[in-house]
C-alpha cells in the first residue's frame, strides 16, 4: 500500500520519458495516448488510496528508508489526496482536449506530464527544500508550456512570469535558510515539533514563514503578487490555461495551507482574510474592463482565488471546508470555461469579444457547457459555485468589511460574465464575412474535445446538486470529523443573496456599456503594471505583509 504513494509521483515522470523515447527510438507517434494511459493509471492508484485516507490514516513514505528528519518523507493525507485528485482529473480532461486539438507535438505531452508529476510531488512532500525543488519543476514546466506557441505575446508573458516567479523563489530560499538557522532541520513536522522550544524566537520563525508564503504566493497569485497571471494564462495554449488556472495556482495555495497549518501560526492566518478580500475585488474589477475573452477568465481566476484565500483566513473548521470546497468547484468550472472558450477560438482563430459576438449560437453544445460554467462561477443555484460561495460568505459574517468586499466581487463576476456571454447570444455581426465563408462549425469540433466539456459540466452539476455529501466528504478528509452544517443550501434567504448580486450585476452592466462607462473601462484596461513595477510589487508585498504582521500580530 505504501509503495503506491511514491508511484503516484513516479508514473508521470516515467511516462514523460516514454513520450520522448518512443518517438525517437521506434518512430511511434502515440504521445497523447501514452499520456492519457499514464494519467488514468494515476487515477486508479488514487482511488485505491481512498479508503485508508478516508479512515483518517496518514500514509507516510520514507524515501530511501531514511526516517523523517534525516531523509525526505512523503505524506498522503486528506489534503494531498484532494489536491492530487483535482490535479489528475483536470489533467486527464485537458489531455483529452489537446489530443483533439491535434496541434501539439510529442514534446508538449512530455512537459505536460512533468508538470502533473511535479504538482503531485509538491503537494505531497513533507520537506521544505524538496518542496522548493518540486515547485521549480512545476514553474519551469509552466514557463515552457506558456511559451509553447512561440508567438510574441506568449514569449513575453513567459519571460515576465519567469522573472517574477524566480524572484519569489529567492524569497522562498531565504525563508528556508532562516528556518534552518533556527531549527537545524528541513522537515515540516520536525520544525513544528521544535517550535515549542523556540518561543523567544517565534517572531523570526514567523518572518521566515512569511518569506515562504510570499515565495509560493507568487504562484498562488494573491493581491500584490498577481500581476503575471493574466498574460500568462491568457496567451498559453488552451489546455495549458485550463490546467494552470484549474490546478497549478491551487496546488501552490494548498502548499501555503500546509505550511501554515502544520506550523500553526494563527496570527499569520488572519492576515489572509484581508488579502483574500482585496484580491477578489481587484480581480473582479479588472475582469470587467477586459475585451479579450481569455483574459476575462484569467482575471477571474485571481478573483476566485481571493474567495478561497479569504475563506482560509477565517480559520474555523467550517470556513476551511468551505474554502476547500470552493477550490474543488473552481477548478472544475474554470477548466470548463477555458476549454469552452478554447473551442470557440479553435474554430475561429479570433479572441476579441466584439469580433466573436453571436458566434456561439452556431455551436449549441458548447453554448450549453459555457452556460453551466458561467452560472457556476456566478453562483446561481443549483450549480456548485452557489453552494461554496454561500458557505464562504456565511463564514465571513464576523468580518463585515471583508463580507462587503466579497459581495462586490461577486457582483462584478455577474457583470463580466454578462459581458463575456455576448459570444453566445445575440445576432452575428453580418459585416463579418468570416462566418459566411465557412459553415458547418458543428461538425468541425472533434469528438475528443466534446468529451472533456461533457465530463466537466456533469461534475459541476453533480457537486452542485449534492453539496451536503461533498462537504461531508471534504471535512472527513481534512479534519477527520463531520462538521455540522445547520445551513440549508437551498433556502430562501440564501437565494436572495444570489438574486441581489444578479440585479446589481445587471444594472452595473447597463452602466458600463454607456459612453462614459466604456471610457472608464478603457482607462482601466490600459492601466496595467509594467514588468518593473510588478517586480517591485513582489518586494513591496513582502514588506507589506511583514509590516501588517508586526502591527496586528501582537494584538492577537
Amino acid at each position: 500500500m505504501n509503495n503506491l504513494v511514491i508511484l503516484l509521483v513516479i508514473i508521470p515522470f516515467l511516462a514523460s520519458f516514454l513520450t520522448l523515447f518512443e518517438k525517437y527510438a521506434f518512430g511511434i507517434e502515440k504521445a497523447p495516448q501514452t499520456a492519457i494511459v499514464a494519467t488514468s493509471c494515476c487515477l486508479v492508484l488514487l482511488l485505491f488510496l481512498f479508503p485508508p485516507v478516508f479512515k483518517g490514516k496518514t500514509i507516510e513514505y520514507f524515501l530511501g528508508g531514511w526516517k523523517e528528519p534525516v531523509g525526505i518523507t512523503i505524506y498522503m493525507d486528506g489534503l494531498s489526496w484532494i489536491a492530487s485528485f483535482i490535479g489528475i482529473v483536470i489533467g486527464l480532461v485537458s489531455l483529452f482536449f489537446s489530443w483533439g486539438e491535434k496541434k501539439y507535438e510529442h514534446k508538449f505531452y512530455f512537459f505536460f506530464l512533468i508538470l502533473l508529476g511535479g504538482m503531485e510531488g509538491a503537494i505531497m512532500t513533507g520537506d521544505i527544500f524538496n518542496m522548493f525543488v518540486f515547485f521549480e519543476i512545476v514553474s519551469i514546466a509552466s514557463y515552457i508550456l506558456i511559451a509553447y506557441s512561440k508567438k510574441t505575446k506568449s514569449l513575453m508573458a513567459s519571460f515576465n512570469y519567469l522573472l517574477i516567479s524566480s524572484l519569489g523563489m529567492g524569497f522562498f530560499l531565504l525563508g528556508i535558510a532562516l528556518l534552518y538557522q533556527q531549527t537545524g532541520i528541513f522537515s515540516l513536522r520536525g520544525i513544528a515539533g521544535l517550535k515549542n522550544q523556540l518561543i523567544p524566537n517565534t517572531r523570526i520563525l514567523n518572518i521566515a514563514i512569511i518569506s515562504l508564503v510570499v515565495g509560493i504566493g507568487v504562484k498562488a497569485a494573491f493581491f500584490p503578487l498577481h500581476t503575471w497571471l493574466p498574460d500568462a494564462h491568457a496567451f498559453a495554449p488552451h489546455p495549458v490555461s485550463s490546467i494552470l488556472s484549474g490546478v497549478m495556482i491551487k496546488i501552490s495555495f494548498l502548499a501555503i495551507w500546509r505550511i501554515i497549518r502544520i506550523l500553526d501560526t494563527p496570527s499569520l492566518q488572519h492576515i489572509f482574510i484581508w488579502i483574500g478580500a482585496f484580491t477578489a475585488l481587484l480581480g473582479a474589477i479588472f475582469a470587467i474592463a477586459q475585451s479579450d475573452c481569455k483574459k476575462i477568465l484569467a482575471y477571474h481566476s485571481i478573483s476566485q482565488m481571493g474567495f478561497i484565500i479569504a475563506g482560509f483566513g477565517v480559520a474555523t473548521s467550517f470556513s476551511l471546508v468551505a474554502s476547500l470546497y470552493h477550490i474543488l468547484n473552481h477548478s472544475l468550472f474554470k477548466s470548463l470555461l477555458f476549454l469552452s472558450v478554447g473551442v470557440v477560438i479553435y474554430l475561429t482563430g479570433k479572441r476579441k469579444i466584439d469580433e466573436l459576438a453571436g458566434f456561439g449560437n452556431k455551436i449549441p453544445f458548447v453554448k450549453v457547457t459555457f452556460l453551466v460554467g458561467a452560472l457556476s462561477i456566478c453562483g446561481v443555484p443549483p450549480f456548485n459555485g452557489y453552494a461554496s460561495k454561500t458557505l464562504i460568505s456565511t463564514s465571513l459574517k464576523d468580518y463585515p468589511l471583508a463580507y462587503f468586499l466579497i459581495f462586490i466581487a461577486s457582483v462584478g463576476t455577474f457583470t463580466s460574465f454578462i459581458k463575456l456571454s455576448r459570444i453566445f447570444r445575440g445576432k452575428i455581426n453580418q459585416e463579418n464575412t468570416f462566418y459566411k465563408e465557412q459553415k458547418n462549425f458543428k461538425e468541425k469540433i472533434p469528438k475528443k474535445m466534446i468529451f472533456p466539456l461533457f465530463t466537466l459540466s456533469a461534475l459541476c452539476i453533480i457537486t452542485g446538486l449534492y453539496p451536503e455529501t461533498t462537504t461531508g466528504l471534504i471535512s472527513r478528509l481534512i479534519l477527520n470529523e463531520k462538521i455540522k452544517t445547520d445551513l440549508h443550501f437551498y433556502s430562501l434567504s440564501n437565494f436572495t443573496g444570489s438574486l441581489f448580486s444578479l440585479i446589481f450585476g445587471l444594472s452595473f452592466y447597463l452602466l458600463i456599456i454607456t459612453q462614459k462607462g466604456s471610457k472608464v473601462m478603457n482607462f482601466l484596461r490600459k492601466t496595467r503594471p509594467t514588468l518593473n513595477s510588478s517586480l517591485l510589487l513582489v518586494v513591496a508585498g513582502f514588506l507589506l505583509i511583514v509590516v501588517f504582521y508586526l502591527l496586528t500580530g501582537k494584538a492577537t
Partner: protein
Amino acid sequence: MMAFYLIISLFLLGIWGIVSKDNLIKKIISLNIFNSSLVVLFIYIGSRTGSTAPIMEKNIKNVVDPLPQALMLTSIVISICIMALALSLAMKVYKKHGTLSISRIENKLNKDE
C-alpha cells in the same frame, strides 16, 4: 557578522538589478547575483559550525555542516537551468523585436492591443 552584512548587500544588489534595469540580459544577470547571494547565505550558515571540509578521512575533527552544501548543489543546478531558459527566451524576444529594452517592448505590445 561582517560576512552577513556583505551577503545582505549582495542580496539587495541583486534585487535592485532585477527591479530597475531596463535591459533583459542585465535583469537575468542580476537574477543570478540574487541566487548566488542565497547560495552564499546557506554556505555561511553551514560554515559557522566547524572549520574543515566534510570529508571524513582519519584524524579529521570539527567539520562543517554538510547538509547546506549538499542542498546548494541542487539549488545551483536549478539556477543554471533557469538562466539557460531565460537567456534563450530573451534571444527569442530579441529576434522578434530587435531590441532588448523592456520599456520599448512593452510600448510596442501595448500599441498592438
